[in-house]
């Protein structure tokens, strides 16, 4: 048995969805190993939900294969796929009690009453809803409905657990709690899972691997740290975390930025996109002594254009030649904000400079 034949292993090959002339998902290729939690991350309309619905069989694929544990499911109807799907809207059956909602999938499988009741009890306990068995969905809070949906999807012991933006309808505090809880349950059961989200924090904090999607295509697939530190494309760099982005020209591995010359990993010649994370930049008044005697850091001179105090951090916008560079520094009790108009020196490690061959895009910092 090869790795991709292992039970619980999901292999997606060339998965494509076309609506008329519009391609929603374009040749998606990826593997999710058994017990792994993978995020589909991307802006709305990137094809992440469509991909998930194709895996669940709710949307027919225009092309490609979906294989779970060596079995090709592409042409298998939804109800025989054995996948647990947690819907964004929960989609609980409004006319059934919590217990009957959770029992639904077991009834469909013709599982006997005694076992069914035991498993329902166990699943409800797993999501900490014991005592709410006879409630109707409408009597529960959003977070509780979410747990019922999770229990209902898990009780059938699906091969794959699919979660479609499950936290987007919860308030911020509950979202943090559920994030941890879903991850814990997923790891405890060792179940393969896909988590669709547009929230990079959810993707980075919960998942083993993240598939960043854009315009129906897979931009990058990797562990959260890789995406953040070694983004494969400018899109990934700007979508995951905050980043400065501007256009410059490279010659002989050196990039001109205003008066300064900086270095970084990337194309050595031609127009480039320069990207630097704002909190990796150190900001010192121009009058302060130079700490980088060996000249190992990239250093540019500029003038503070705007200072914004945001509690934990200070945001600066610094004019460097034609470009505007955003800088974030942690606030300190021993030094106040640097006032606008102050000449400053910005410095950062060459490794923190991301260079990409230029594509058409404007040169502002992205949130």
């Amino acid at each position, binding site marked *: 048995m090869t790795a991709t034949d292992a039970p619980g292993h999901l292999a997606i090959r060339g998965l494509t969805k076309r609506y008329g002339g519009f391609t929603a998902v374009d040749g998606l290729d990826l593997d999710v190993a058994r017990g792994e939690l993978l995020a589909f991350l991307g802006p709305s309309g990137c094809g992440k939900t469509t991909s998930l619905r194709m895996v*669940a*069989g*709710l949307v027919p694929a225009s092309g490609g294969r979906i294989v779970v544990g060596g079995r090709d499911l592409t042409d298998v*109807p*939804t*109800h*025989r*796929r*054995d*996948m*647990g*799907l947690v*819907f964004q*809207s929960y*989609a*609980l*059956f*409004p*006319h059934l009690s919590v217990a009957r909602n959770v029992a*639904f*999938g077991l009834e*469909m*499988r013709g599982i006997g009453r005694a076992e069914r009741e035991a498993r329902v009890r166990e699943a409800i306990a797993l999501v900490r809803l014991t005592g709410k068995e006879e409630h109707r969905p409408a009597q529960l809070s959003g977070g509780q409905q979410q747990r019922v*949906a999770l229990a*209902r*999807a898990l009780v*059938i012991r699906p091969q794959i657990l*699919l979660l479609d933006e499950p936290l987007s309808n919860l308030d911020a505090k509950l979202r943090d709690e559920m994030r941890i809880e879903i991850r814990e349950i997923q790891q405890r059961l060792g179940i393969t899972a896909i988590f669709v989200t547009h929230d990079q924090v959810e993707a980075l904090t919960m998942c083993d691997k993240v598939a960043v999607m854009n315009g129906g295509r897979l931009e990058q697939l990797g562990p959260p740290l890789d995406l953040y530190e070694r983004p494969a494309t400018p899109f990934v760099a700007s979508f995951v975390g905050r980043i400065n982005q501007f256009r410059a020209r490279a010659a002989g591995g050196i990039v001109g930025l205003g008066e300064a010359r900086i270095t970084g990993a990337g194309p050595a010649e031609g127009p480039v996109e320069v990207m630097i994370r704002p909190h990796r930049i150190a900001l010192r008044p121009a009058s302060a002594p130079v700490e980088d005697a060996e000249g190992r850091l990239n250093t540019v001179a500029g003038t503070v254009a705007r200072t914004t105090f945001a509690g934990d951090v200070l945001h600066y916008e610094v004019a460097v030649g034609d470009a505007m560079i955003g800088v974030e520094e942690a606030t300190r009790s021993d030094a106040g904000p640097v006032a606008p108009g102050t000449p400053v020196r910005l410095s950062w490690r060459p490794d923190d400079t991301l260079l990409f061959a230029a594509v058409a895009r404007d040169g502002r910092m992205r949130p």
Partner: protein
Amino acid sequence: MDERKPPLGLILLALPLLAFLLAPVLITIPISFSADPYLSFPPSGWSLRWYRAAFTGGAVLDVFATSVALGLVVTALSLLIALPAAMALVRLRWGWVSAIESFLTAPLLLPAIVLGLAILIVFAPLGLLATFPGLVAAHLVVTLPYALRILSTALAGAPLAAEEAAATLGASPLRVFWRVTLPAIRPGLAAAAALCFLVSFDEVVISLFLTGPRLSTLPVWMFHHVENEADPLVAAVSVLLIALTLVIVLVVDRTAGLSRTFVK
């Protein structure tokens, strides 16, 4: 919603008009308790003789039984035929859905007098005149559009995500329909059933063309009775019909909502 009260002048203007609207329905109540052998108002005395006559006279009971049986069969068939059609129209996103819908509800636009004549002419050579199947078929032509419209609205409001959830949990399409879709549209089904029954039970113009001495319905019998002798017997039957109508109006209000069903 706003708290503004309607102006007093409007209320004073509307009340007599409402009385005008309800007058012919309300007057049947005192007349039904008349002791007179003929129609007169006010009656010279009160009695239950016309209710007794309605329940003991063979003619009324016969046509009443026919109308009830007809209404029940037509209602059952209407739901059985319109529900799958509504499923297809609502769930399949075909480009020409609205064209099919207009085509299927077109019989409602045709005057009953024209539809009745047209059906008479086609049914006569088929031996369907004054037969139960003939009446069922003719009534279906007018009840199906109502059923289709109410059930389509109900299905369009049913939660698609819950159906998908049931499918992911292993329910086959038939079981999804049975276990999730059907419970969700129960109010729409009740409203459709109530209206179909009422439309069939009250139908008179088309039935006039298709009934005969062998087989008649209650409204047709009432029509001929009023045409010939307007005695209080019809009033007693009318009161029973009005009570039935009121019950059905309340059923529709409780299930589908009066505003949503009658005010588009």
